[in-house]
């Protein structure tokens, strides 16, 4: 009962902030709603007993990435009023098509996931979960999901080098 109340309250907040992110006229406000959204998601994780994930969500997304967003938003055209410009891309129908495709995809995943037994443990996980899920996450990351993990890190490295190169070029 209590769990359900917590869950639905959080869900409402998460979605509400999500909507505010895209409707807010002020870019900085929009970024702030994004942070609020992330924080709500983090609390959801806590409710699911995934503390590690929750903390990482706050640390990486709310505390790291969005700060950079804010940085960029503040540095780039502080004065330009958003409603003064009409973005031609906004009127394109492509957006609706893409959104519809995404919606379909998400619903498909939901249906598929719902058809499976919800309590089935992830394959390869130790039979008895360790106290706290940090170890489980680490275990999975370095055994079953080693290749995706490494690929992701290489991708990030490439992105970093690319960013540095771009910045360098401008300087020269």
């Amino acid at each position, binding site marked *: 009962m209590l769990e359900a109340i917590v869950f639905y309250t959080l869900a409402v907040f998460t979605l509400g902030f999500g909507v505010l992110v895209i409707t807010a006229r002020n870019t900085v406000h929009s970024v702030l709603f994004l942070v609020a959204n992330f924080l709500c998601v983090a609390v959801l994780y806590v409710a699911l007993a995934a503390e590690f994930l929750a903390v990482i969500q706050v640390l990486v997304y709310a505390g790291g990435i969005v700060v950079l967003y804010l940085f960029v938003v503040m*540095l*780039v055209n502080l004065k330009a009023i958003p409603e003064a410009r009409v973005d031609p891309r906004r009127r394109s129908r492509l957006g609706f098509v893409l959104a519809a495709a995404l919606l379909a995809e998400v619903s498909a995943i939901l249906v598929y996931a719902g058809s499976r037994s919800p309590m089935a443990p992830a394959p390869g996980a130790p039979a008895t979960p360790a106290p706290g899920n940090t170890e489980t996450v680490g275990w999975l990351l370095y055994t079953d999901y080693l290749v995706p993990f490494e690929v992701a890190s290489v991708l990030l490295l490439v992105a970093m080098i690319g960013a540095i190169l771009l910045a360098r070029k401008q300087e020269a």
Partner: protein
Amino acid sequence: MFDTNELVINMGPQHPSTHGVLRVVLRLDGERVIEAKVVIGYLHRGIEKLCEHRDWGQIVLITDRMDYVAAASNNLGYCETVEKLMSLEVPPRAQYIRTILAELQRIASHCLWLGTHAMDIGAMTVFLYAFRERELILDLFEEYCGARLTYNAMRIGGLPLDIPPRWDAKVRAFCDILDTKVDEYEELLTHNRIWLERTRGVGVIGAAEAIAIGLSGPALRGSAVPRDIRKDEPYAAYADFAFDVPIGDAGDTYDRYLVRIEEFRQSTRIIRQALDGLPEGPILGKVPRLIKPPAGETYHAIESPKGELGYFIVSDGKSNVPYRFRVRPPSFCNLQALPRLVKGHLVADVVALIGSIDIVLGEVDR
């Protein structure tokens, strides 16, 4: 990708580290200064004009209000200029006491500079330490002439007062205290890594350029120009004393700092010699009752704590006021170098450099 937004910020006239009502308009790229414009005049009181309407004796009191942290030096410069114009002989005792007062004043001014300069760079304890020593000097001045800031301590032809009894012993004791305290300041700053990083290589100006742009005083000596009016064109009793003129070599903020620190020590050295050789005799020369210099003009400069403090005075020989009274304020001329010094540095260096050239707005604006 991003347009580099230039930011224009107004530093001052109300800003904690512009040392008064200086206004610096900074054009910034990020935090780097592209251009600095100095706007002055907020404290302009028309002292030159005012002095052309006051009689010769009254002007001493107005000169106090220019460089108000070194009032006695201003008095000295003015009195010497009028004495030069009148070819007056000043008795040696007065010359010696004037020298002592001027050197005490130099120490007081440097204390204030050190404190505020260190404070600008974030070392706030040095500020209070330096003010503690300055307070001792103010006490000495209070005992000598009753005032603590604007002394009106000199007269044309000599001094209004002889030193009070046992004052010389107190000055000696102060010199001993100061020598140990200067070591204390140096312990806190001279070899401090952060201090070195903040001051070395900041605001470098070479000797030729420093001369061309009109720097004088410690700011010029920091750029390895051995120019000290006390040595080059001795006035008061400076010819009688042995002292060194410290110079820097790199011409950066650190060298200007070192030069001033060394000047503390040289000043106590001069004061001690002056006290040792203090002659007996009158303190006021043969001054006519009505001071009215013969028609003519002269420029006379002394080494004030900030640099070359010059007076250009024209007398028409008929009226009891100067026909033209002009001050060459060292702070004004040194401040002119600020835009050149801060160019390409960061905002944090701007405050360090304002401190480093040591200005007093009362003198810049007059």
